[in-house]
């Protein structure tokens, strides 16, 4: 099983974001650098959920927002290493929708279950594969920097 390393600050931030937007899904980008052991996430960037028609169980990030997030990340020597979103009153497991809409191969998708407004489980899934046709989600361990 691969490992996603992130700081405690990022871990708490993505969970807090999900609590703030409950009962709607939150979303955002995870920023960091690639190391020999995999991604090291040191920052996150909140994003708006454009799925205002169904925000309780759908999210989408406007591409222009990602253009800006990437531009700011580049200026800080970081790259987008993955994304996070929440599942209000639903398990922190990827859905068929999550999979169908996942296109950032080699990146991590972090999902937080938010039950009755409180963040419970946070899981991470690595989008493995080399094409749309052979992509798959592999469960990965979250390693909070300095706490393993």
């Amino acid at each position: 099983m691969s490992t996603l390393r992130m700081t405690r600050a990022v871990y708490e931030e993505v969970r807090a974001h999900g609590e703030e937007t409950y009962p709607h899904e939150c979303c955002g980008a995870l920023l960091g650098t690639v190391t020999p052991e995999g991604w090291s996430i040191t920052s996150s960037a909140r994003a708006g959920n454009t799925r205002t028609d169904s925000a309780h169980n759908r999210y989408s990030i406007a591409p222009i927002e990602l253009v800006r997030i990437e531009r700011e990340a580049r200026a800080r020597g970081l790259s987008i290493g993955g994304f996070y979103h929440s599942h209000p009153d639903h398990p922190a497991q990827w859905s068929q929708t999550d999979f169908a809409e996942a296109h950032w191969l080699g990146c991590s998708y972090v999902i937080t279950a938010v039950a009755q407004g409180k963040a419970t489980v946070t899981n991470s899934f690595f989008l493995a594969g080399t094409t749309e046709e052979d992509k798959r989600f592999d469960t990965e361990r979250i390693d909070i920097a300095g706490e393993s």
Partner: protein
Amino acid sequence: MKVFIPTPLRVFAGGKDKVEVGGATIAAALDELTQTYPDLRKHLFTPEGKLRAFVNVYLNDEDVRYLPEKEATAIRDSDTLSIIPSIAGGAPVRA
């Protein structure tokens, strides 16, 4: 002009996060990009040569799909192209 390569496509662009390309239009710039890095082509375009539905291309801060001349838009050396795969998802619909 610079083309910014998103994380998932860097492995097909020699590991680079940006590539300098020439070309008078967006289409010419993308063509030069995929000529230089042929493995990128199938990730950006359908077999029919159209941009894949989940691939967004921005000329500076403008979505190419909504430019009057789309990929035929003329570009300047100071322009940038950003390739951004879509990001979306959500929890299953409850029965």
